[in-house]
């Protein structure tokens, strides 16, 4: 109770409220801009949070996460271009509504559904996470090593088109994580350069992989005169859905929200899968399935509730076990660690006032998102009219600044530039950059806990692990996780095949 009161006090500080507002508005803009993802937005803004109070910083990052998912639906509805992969399913009924002159109605439906989905996921986070975190109290180095391994098995699920290349990407992260001092104080792969003794810093590496590489990708468009905008929709009519229509949609929104939370908890299955599952549920349970694809309100409400519900669900394993189920969650984990907070029970004990403030802030973000969406949602799509040649220098300067600001060290700037180059080549040659982050975060964790676990075992490690029931459970989870990507790929392909080619296109965003 005391922690909750401190959390409320933390939430209502001026810094936290500013963080909340900036996160919601910034996330919406980032989400609405095709080509900019929540992952990139969070990676760019983590350095900004460095000098901030941890509550305000993490509230801002969590708000960006949920708001960017919602923002993606605005461009999906108005210009038939999903701002984030999670919004691809919304295109199918959102854009036909725009073509029928009901764009504002469609945005209203998306706003209401996203808010409810996100809010329900925040409640789930508040209720489930502390219970799950208690389990981590029983963990020793052996379990933490296995948890790191478990996290690494998610690489396959972030792999994109080729599992093998995804694994290579994860291994690049692991190899990069080897650089620096090893747990027994040996200077590993530092090539006698003192700047490398501290290892590869996570934030500059992420900024390079997601932002600078994106700048290089956008440079391919040089001279083509492309902007990201297609056409401007006519925004007339009412924003809020009629009461009768809303009441009719409530059971569907609630059902899809629960599904979204469950999908979010599952490692590796993100908002894109949840939105397709939600859309399929809506269609199979609808009295008018033939209207889907023609601008049916249910076709917007279902995927939007489901994809925003994923955000809170994905934070549950992240905060309790340190398992980032998606690239956005991996970047958020980076945000937690730079503020000196390690996932696990201590987040709900030692740092309870901060953690609960973040969860309550996340709840508030989902409400504020609705209000901001109602007030300015219709205008947000105009940001996609900003010419790319004007946007790219801003992103570059902010990337360089962000990588420098974290530790005010030029080595980090060079790391960001090098990782930007590597990230660009990886994208060109079909190697996804997200697993690198996972490898870079979990590699050093696995390394240090492996070192400690071998010393605790005092002999062979495997028999020691097999003597511990929790280790056995985590080993079984690792085995299950190895099969999860194949199952989720089959599920995603089934739904994409069912609903057409928008889902395929979304994979490339």
């Amino acid at each position, binding site marked *: 109770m005391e922690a909750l009161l401190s959390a409320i006090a933390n939430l209502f500080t001026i810094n936290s409220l500013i963080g909340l507002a900036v996160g919601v508005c910034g996330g919406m803009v980032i989400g609405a801009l095709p080509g900019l993802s929540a992952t990139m937005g969070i990676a760019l803004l983590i350095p*900004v949070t*460095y*000098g*901030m109070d941890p509550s305000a910083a993490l509230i801002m990052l969590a708000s960006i996460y949920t708001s960017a998912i919602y923002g993606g639906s605005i461009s999906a509805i108005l210009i038939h271009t999903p701002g984030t992969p999670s919004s691809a399913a919304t295109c199918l009924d959102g854009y036909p509504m725009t073509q029928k002159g009901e764009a504002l109605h469609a945005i209203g439906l998306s706003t209401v559904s996203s808010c409810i989905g996100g809010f329900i996921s925040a409640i789930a986070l508040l209720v489930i996470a502390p219970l799950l975190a208690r389990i981590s109290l029983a963990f020793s180095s052996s379990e933490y090593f296995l948890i790191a391994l478990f996290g690494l098995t998610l690489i396959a699920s972030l792999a*994109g*088109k*080729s599992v*093998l*290349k995804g*694994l*290579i990407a994860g*291994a*690049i992260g*692991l*190899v990069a994580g*080897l650089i620096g001092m*090893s*747990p*027994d104080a*040996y200077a*590993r*792969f530092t090539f006698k350069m003192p700047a490398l003794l501290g290892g590869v810093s996570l934030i500059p590496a992420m900024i390079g992989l997601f932002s*600078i590489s994106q*700048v*290089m*990708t956008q*440079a*391919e468009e*040089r*001279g*083509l*005169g492309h902007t990201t905008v297609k056409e401007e929709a006519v925004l007339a009519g009412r924003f809020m859905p009629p009461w009768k229509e809303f009441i009719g949609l409530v059971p569907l929104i609630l059902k899809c929200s629960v599904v979204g939370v469950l999908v979010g908890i599952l490692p590796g299955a993100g908002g894109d899968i949840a939105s397709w599952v939600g859309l399929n549920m809506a269609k199979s349970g609808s009295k008018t399935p033939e209207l889907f694809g023609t601008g049916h309100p249910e076709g917007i409400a279902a995927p939007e509730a489901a994809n925003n519900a994923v955000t809170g669900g994905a934070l549950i394993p992240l905060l309790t076990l340190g398992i980032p189920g998606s690239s956005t969650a991996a970047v958020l984990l980076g945000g937690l660690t730079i503020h000196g907070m390690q996932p696990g029970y201590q987040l709900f004990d030692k740092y309870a006032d901060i953690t609960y403030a973040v969860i309550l802030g996340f709840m508030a973000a989902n409400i504020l998102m609705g209000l901001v969406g109602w007030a300015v949602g219709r205008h947000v799509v105009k940001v996609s009219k900003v*010419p*790319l*040649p*004007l946007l*790219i*220098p*801003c992103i*570059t*300067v*902010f990337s*360089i*600044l962000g990588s*420098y*600001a974290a530790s*005010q060290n*030029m080595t980090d*700037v*060079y790391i960001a*530039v090098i990782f*930007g180059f590597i990230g*660009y080549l990886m994208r*060109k*040659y*079909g190697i996804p950059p997200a697993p690198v982050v996972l490898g870079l975060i979990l*590699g050093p964790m696995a390394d240090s806990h*492996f*070192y400690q676990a*071998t010393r605790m075992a005092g002999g062979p490690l495997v028999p020691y692990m097999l003597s511990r029931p929790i280790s056995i459970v985590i080993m079984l989870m690792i085995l299950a996780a190895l099969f999860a990507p194949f199952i989720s790929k089959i599920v995603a392909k089934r739904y994409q095949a069912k609903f057409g080619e928008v889902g395929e296109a979304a994979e490339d965003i």
Partner: protein
Amino acid sequence: MTRTRLQDFVIGLVVAAVGIFGMVNAIKMPDGTRPYTLVVTVIFTALGSLVAVRSILYAKTESHDCKAVTIKEMINPFFAFLMVVAYAFALTAIGFFVSSAIFMPVLALWMGYRKPIPLICTTAGMLGFIYILFVYQLNVTLPRGILF
């Protein structure tokens, strides 16, 4: 061998070569560091070798996970990268604000943007925002050079 498979083959070779370099070094490391380092580098070598072998086995078919990359399409990105590198080095020479004030319009002009007023406003607005947020609010000491 098709172009995409050739790309995969080169990637596999590079990855395997880096992995072997790591393995050779790992063997000489102390007991506490060696096992984990060796496992990671062996995995890295194995994955690189797998990609290379796969590209030989399916040499006649196109790879489904990447497109054929031409030198021509990479010229502009590489030039942009060189500009970023120059900008990064300029930070310590002439300071953050001066180098950014030069870099932003130059990159925008190179990208094909030709409207001076929005360009000046964007550059000034961005640098003003950075000054207020980072220097004034967060007390970050940005790189200073001979000019500012």
